[in-house]
């Protein structure tokens, strides 16, 4: 499968051998990387799956509560109630390195440490349904953030795994066999050259001996005289 022509020289052979060694080593390393990434990815995606189910259920329940709250209140009162949030969430983002994939880590901080600060309205003009709704949404928030973290990690790892897998396959099925055939070709060609030069030398030796001693002539003379 030597697709391109190679020069059958010793220099080329050493070069190819070195290249093959590197390729084999790289292949092993990449394979290890792929396996480890895959293990971690599967762990993470299982967790994501469970967490997503939980979060989706939580948000849906919260949405139901909000619909109820809206039904019991006037739109304007609702808007006014939620117009000026007292709480503020800020994120600190770090980087975690998993097998050279940089995945984000989030740490969230609320502006005020009091968990009850989510009620940004006086209770006079709002229905109690709104309180429940806001509370139910606040309860899923930590899980939502965790979901964001691990789902993004899954996304990044998935594309990295795909890339690594392609590289491993390319090395395993294309690069390494190709180089092996090239090396084999050069070795054969060199051996062949050596044999042919040996033969040539033998032939030349014969001819030179003939010139020096005139074996043939002598043989003919002997035949005539006998």
């Amino acid at each position, binding site marked *: 499968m030597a697709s391109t022509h190679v020069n059958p020289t010793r220099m080329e052979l050493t070069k190819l051998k070195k290249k093959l060694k590197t390729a084999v080593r790289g292949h092993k390393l990449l394979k290890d990387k792929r396996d480890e990434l895959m293990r971690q990815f599967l762990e993470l995606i299982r967790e994501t799956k469970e967490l997503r189910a939980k979060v989706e259920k939580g948000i849906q329940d919260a*949405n139901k509560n909000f619909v109820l709250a809206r039904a019991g209140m006037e739109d304007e009162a609702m808007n006014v109630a939620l117009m000026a949030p007292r709480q*503020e969430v800020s994120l600190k983002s770090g980087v975690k390195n998993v097998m050279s994939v940089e995945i984000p880590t989030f740490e969230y901080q609320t502006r005020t440490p009091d968990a009850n600060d989510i009620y940004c309205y006086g209770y006079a003009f709002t229905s109690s349904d709104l309180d429940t709704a*806001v509370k139910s*949404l606040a309860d899923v928030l930590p899980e939502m953030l965790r979901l964001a973290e691990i789902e993004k990690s899954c996304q990044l790892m998935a594309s990295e795994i795909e890339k690594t897998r392609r590289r491993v396959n390319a090395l395993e099925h294309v690069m390494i066999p190709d180089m092996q055939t090239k090396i084999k070709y050069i070795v054969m060609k060199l051996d062949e050259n050596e044999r042919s030069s040996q033969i040539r030398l033998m032939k030349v030796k014969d001819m030179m001996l003939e010139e020096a001693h005139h074996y043939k002539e002598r043989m003919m003379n002997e035949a005539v005289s006998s």
Partner: protein
Amino acid sequence: MYKIAVLGDRDSIYGFAALGLDTYPVDDQETGAATLKRLADSEYAVIYVTESLQNLLMTEIDKYRTLRLPAIIPIPGVSGNTGRGVKALKKMVEQAVGSDIIFNNEN
């Protein structure tokens, strides 16, 4: 310091304002795409997008797939759960493993 945004139709997201997340009500694709781009380029690390809006913004969201930040996460809206979030997970497994080995015993 990063912030969190919620993108979607107003009815689905106004509750998040009470928690201190920034809400951006959008309905159609054009403003959605513009807002998403603006948010992703500024200091938002996590952007929650309702599933119905995500449906409209597929190509725009796909651009941020391979970037570390922001994380764009689909959440169910008030109109119900379309299963799009789970489908996205499924796609990830398929991309990584080659075939779906986690969700195949469901549906």
